[in-house]
């Protein structure tokens, strides 16, 4: 049985074209980009070519791209970098309750020091109200960070409107776009962002590579000090193969973006509709239309997410859940709770995130298998009886 991978928001397989593009940089073209000789020049050229590709995809200039080890480092760099470079101007940072931990935990870290953090709530669909952002800005605000699309529920935030507000107020604006770059169109000028985080392995590139877009003139301090790599913004010998892989992944994504998004959105809607029809007491989490083309997140009443997930895995279907039972923390997903879901519904959530290799047959297989699993677990559930 071929397993059906439906967890592309967690990570994606590295495309064979991407792997192929990376391979020479492990062996024949192994040079250090900082070296002056021909090996160094060759590696340097490859890094700069990748930088141009990343810049092109998001409508930036190549000197505005800083390569990092991934999305988490890009988020850390953006938040800590801006906070500590602009302390003299103010100490207030605005973010939301549904950010990725790579933003939330950095805010917690800053909040324990000299910074004041405002975490804006979201509505039942996971949308941030731009007006809330406007009202939260004070003369001490130095940074606003709102994700482009949420990784759990797929809601696409009104980043463009927030960008307009931030710019009018003269406040730096960062967006974690790890879930959107390469999947839906992202343009840094249209979104009016000053900083934007990118991760390679979410768009069929390798793990261990990412980038932070830094608009020209944005003041931020480095996290890594050492050599003069990345124009002294990020010290350390470049991960050349991974950076080349990121460049290739971005190039391919750019070529296919519209068509693939359309194909995935069709599969997504088929899955959402089918789940609603075949399993009673389910509801869609996230926004019905302002939604990533590949994201399906549903709550299934009376059953617990980990049991669902493991049963699906036994059938060769790989998904994800916001239930606490699948993690070390006792609380279910902070995102689902921020949307206002009761905890028991958050425990019964399932997330399917589609990708390139998925077909209509995969969706049909989920729809064929899941109702039986749910029925079996519900027969075991003491909650269903309570409801009767």
């Amino acid at each position, binding site marked *: 049985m071929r397993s059906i991978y439906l*967890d592309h928001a*967690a990570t994606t397989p590295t495309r064979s074209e991407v792997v192929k593009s990376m391979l020479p940089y492990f062996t024949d073209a192994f040079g250090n980009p900082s070296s002056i000789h021909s090996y160094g020049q060759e590696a340097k050229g490859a890094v700069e070519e990748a930088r141009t590709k990343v810049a092109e995809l998001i409508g930036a200039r190549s000197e505005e791209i800083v390569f990092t080890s991934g999305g988490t480092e890009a988020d850390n760099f953006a938040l800590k970098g801006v906070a500590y470079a602009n302390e003299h101007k103010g100490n207030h940072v605005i973010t939301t309750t549904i950010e990725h931990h790579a933003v939330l935990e950095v805010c917690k870290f800053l909040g324990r020091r000299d910074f004041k953090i405002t975490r804006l709530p979201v509505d039942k669909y996971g949308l941030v109200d731009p007006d809330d952002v406007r009202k939260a800005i004070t003369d001490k605000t130095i940074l606003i960070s709102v994700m482009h699309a949420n990784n759990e529920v797929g809601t696409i935030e009104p980043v463009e409107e927030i960008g307009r507000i931030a710019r009018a107020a003269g406040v730096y604006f960062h967006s974690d776009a790890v879930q959107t770059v390469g999947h839906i169109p992202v343009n840094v000028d249209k979104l009016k962002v000053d900083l934007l985080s990118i991760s390679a392995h979410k768009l069929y590139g390798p793990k261990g590579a990412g980038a932070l877009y830094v608009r020209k003139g944005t003041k931020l301090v480095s996290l890594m000090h050492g050599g003069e790599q990345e124009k002294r913004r990020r010290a350390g010998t470049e991960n050349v193969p991974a950076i080349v892989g990121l460049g290739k992944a971005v190039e391919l994504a750019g070529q296919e973006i519209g068509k693939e998004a359309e194909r995935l959105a069709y599969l997504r809607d088929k899955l959402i509709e089918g789940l609603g029809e075949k399993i009673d007491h389910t509801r869609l989490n996230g926004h019905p239309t302002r939604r990533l083309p590949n994201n399906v997140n549903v709550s299934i009443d*009376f*059953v*617990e997410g*980990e*049991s669902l997930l*493991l049963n699906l*895995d*036994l059938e060769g279907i790989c998904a*994800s859940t916001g*239930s*606490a*039972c*699948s*993690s*070390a923390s*006792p609380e*279910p997903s902070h995102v689902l709770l921020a949307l206002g879901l009761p*905890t*028991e519904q958050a*425990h019964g959530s399932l997330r399917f995130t589609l990708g390139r290799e998925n077909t209509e047959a995969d969706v049909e297989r989920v729809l064929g298998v899941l109702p039986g699993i749910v029925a079996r677990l519900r*027969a*075991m*559930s*003491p*909650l269903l*009886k309570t409801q009767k």
Partner: protein
Amino acid sequence: MSDIWSLYNEKLMEHFKNPRNVGEMENPDGMGRVGNPVCGDIMELYIKVNDGTIVDAKFKTFGCAAAIATSSMVTEMVKGKSIEEALKISNKAVVEALDGLPPAKVHCSVMAEDALKAAIEDYLEHQKLKRQI
């Protein structure tokens, strides 16, 4: 996501896939309900008692694979035991019978022990009332 279920052993997975004694019991002699849906765990355990011996046990559980497997195991362990023997079944014994649990899931075995104790207490309470009548 986490690596928690990669730590689930074969025996636990077998009980998760084919849980024993699932269901409610008509007129149980004792019933225990522990946990709460907010934590993502609820366990209901029913026992049938004949001459001081537990002759049947059933359960209903809302929870993860470990919660379901420990429910299944504890109901298996308790059958045929006297009330005194059943009261001595600890969460550790349930964990051992399942060949171990991941550390983050040990609370599931505690819940199984608690559900069993609650069911026995319920039974003893009824006995006391009966004697009073």
